[in-house]
């Protein structure tokens, strides 16, 4: 690969970071100062200060839905003089919401949804729990198909984990593919595909995750530890699982092209565990994918064909139940490897 091409992504990243990094938003909001509970207990209406929400049709970033009246009888009833207060700017909305439309539905009782308020010293603003939404909105169909964006703005930033379907506990590593094949869109509500690519780019990635992330000791990496010594054992236990991520050329990159075989330094001796000539039939019938690690193409495949071609000494290799016909030979080049 050209060195210049390797520098381009770095330059691109640096450029992006520099261009965008000059004006980053403050990650940590200022502490809230207003003691809501004191004012609620005093019987103050929310709209005394939050009048803008009566006409608010969307939750906007940078918006301050607070208007403290300069001369308020409600404030003056307790405060003399009325203290000044600078409202905290909302950082970024998490959901789409129309206050003006919803307020009549709850009889202008904000506590129907806002069950908890910020108090003096709070840094994190409590948001209405999702059950206040689902109390009225039938959410189950959206939930079933992972359609979250009508309400949630970006679940990458505000992940959710209901107990049942979206729990990633126990043997989730083993089962996650079964969930994902039904609707990848559900996964992408929270996860970018870059997360998947940590493992699921076996074709292009140079290091397995277990090597790249040695510090993640609690993660369930399939190839953790001395995988090389036991890979043939695991292949015998579940050959299909290997082939879901790795084509057989992946095996051949070591076993073929680089001659990495036990015993290969002693005159091309067969690898440990290789079946003898008399055993090769049973091995081929039972687990041909192990043979494929070396014999799937090129000279390796020719070794099989040299005996098993029509008229060869190896005889007919087709298993019981084979129903291929002579007429298929013309349409399938693979057949013509043995059938002239």
């Amino acid at each position: 690969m050209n060195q210049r091409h390797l520098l381009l992504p770095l330059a691109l990243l640096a450029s992006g970071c520099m261009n965008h990094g000059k004006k980053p938003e403050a990650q940590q909001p200022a502490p809230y100062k207003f003691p809501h509970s004191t004012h609620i207990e005093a019987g103050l209406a929310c709209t005394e200060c939050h009048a803008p929400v009566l006409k608010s049709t969307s939750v906007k970033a940078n918006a301050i839905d607070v208007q403290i009246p300069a001369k308020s009888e409600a404030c003056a009833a307790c405060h003399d003089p009325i203290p000044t207060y600078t409202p905290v700017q909302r950082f970024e909305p998490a959901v789409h919401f129309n206050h003006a439309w919803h307020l009549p539905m709850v009889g202008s009782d904000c506590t129907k949804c806002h069950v908890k308020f910020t108090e003096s010293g709070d840094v994190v603003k409590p948001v209405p729990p999702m059950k206040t939404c689902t109390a009225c909105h039938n959410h189950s169909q959206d939930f079933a198909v992972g359609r979250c964006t009508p309400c949630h703005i970006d679940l990458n930033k505000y992940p959710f984990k209901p107990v049942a379907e979206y729990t990633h506990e126990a043997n989730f590593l083993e089962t996650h593919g079964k969930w994902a094949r039904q609707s990848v869109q559900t996964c992408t509500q929270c996860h970018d595909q870059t997360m998947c690519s940590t493992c699921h780019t076996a074709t292009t990635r140079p290091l397995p995750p277990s090597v790249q992330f040695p510090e993640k000791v609690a993660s369930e990496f399939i190839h953790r530890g001395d995988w090389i010594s036991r890979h043939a054992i695991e292949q015998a236990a579940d050959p299909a699982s290997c082939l879901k991520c790795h084509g057989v050329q992946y095996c051949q990159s070591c076993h073929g092209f680089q001659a990495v075989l036990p015993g290969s330094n002693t005159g091309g001796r067969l690898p440990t565990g290789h079946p003898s000539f008399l055993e090769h039939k049973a091995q081929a019938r039972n687990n041909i994918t192990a043979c494929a690690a070396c014999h799937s193409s090129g000279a390796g495949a020719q070794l099989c064909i040299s005996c098993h071609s029509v008229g060869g000494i190896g005889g007919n290799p087709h298993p019981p139940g084979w129903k291929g016909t002579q007429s298929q030979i013309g349409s399938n080049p693979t057949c013509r490897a043995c059938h002239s």
Partner: protein
Amino acid sequence: MRLRLGIALLAAAVLLAPASGRASELEATSSTSLYFQKQWRDGATYPTTPLYEFISVSGRGFAIPGGELQLVVDAWGGVDLSSPPWWNGYTNSGAWSGDLNLAFVKGSWLKGDLQVKLGRQSIGVGNARMLQLDGLSLSSRFLEYLSLDVWGGAPTVQRFIGWGSVYSSNPTLGNVAVGGRLGFAYRQWVSFGVSTTLAWDSGNFTREDVALDLKFSPVPWMYLLGYLDYSLFANEYYSGFGNQLPEASASLVFPVTPHLQFTAEYSYTVPALLLGYNSILWVFTDGSHQYLGGTARVGLEAFGLHVPLDIDLGYRWIASYSALGDPTTGALSKDSESGNRYFVRATWKPSARSTVGAEGSRLDLPEQGYWNARVFGSLRMYGFTGTLDGQGYWFDQPVNGNTQSIIGNATLGYDVGHGLSVVGAVSGGETPYYKSYFSGMVKLVYNQTYRFREVQP
């Protein structure tokens, strides 16, 4: 290769630069790793020292007419400081190498009900098996209960070395692949779909499968997951329904709580049908594998105890069947073998900053097997994170003349702040292939999210 990579990067630059003011978020991760290990080649060991740079950039919230755009680039580049170079997934590619794991733009419209993705991506829907693809995919939901996913392109080839199955280590071989899934979902109770994956290598089928998938959840604490992948290609050459199923499975999942879950699973595979259908080898075989087992997670917190201890248990019965017969003479005998896999793991999290775990497993196959034991722990304090990890395998039969493999790992990381962290790792032990195994890594990780807001007038 240069042209394709250049086009991809140019597209990324064009999309990032002019629209930068409109992006709501840019998430960037950079990881620089210097790795060293002795690697075995043809009877001798050689020191290898690859230096890798991994970059992942995801920009979300670019405004486009009627929707928004996402840009994802996930790539790596490397230089090997020694010779022969570190094996990085394919043939020796010289001192310099690199690849794109992902590089796509995704447009979303109709509040996400219509999504189009163009570029290098992974296709996980239906029976695609997380196919790495250079191409186009479309995902849509309509009429409340229906979804349609279609995709097409060329299966990714590592290091841009060429097209087709002669070179590719992509499990879906070939130079053209298309597929899709039509799905139906009703509430949280049931969803099912039919999918297909077709792939060709120079005009010849390498995959020709259709599949059915099902999820049924009559109650919130139970899911039935079913999957059946059927090879149309094998149907033309093999009799017997079982010989035409690359894979099928049925699982019962009981997610009672995060600390109390159970699964039971049966699966069936014909491994040869996961080879490319243009391989000469799949006409030699008549073998299938079956698995039956289950797992359980039992956490003490599920019983109201304030002890953060989870115990995972697993068992799998493994069986393989093959027909040994000569169709010429008619002599036939069925051969079957079986084995077992056991697994247990205990994870204790005494605090939010620390984890201690131990696990053991046993694989018992007719001709080989092993015992495994592992302990691990991590502790985070004062910005430092340290981990220890030790594991051993004891083989039933010698591997390369040895019956055990023992490796220990230690890492120490420091969170510098502002998204920057440094990790050092060493690993050592004795394995069947290395009398004295040692490797190390120094890693510099930068992980940052930049948020920008499009201020509405």
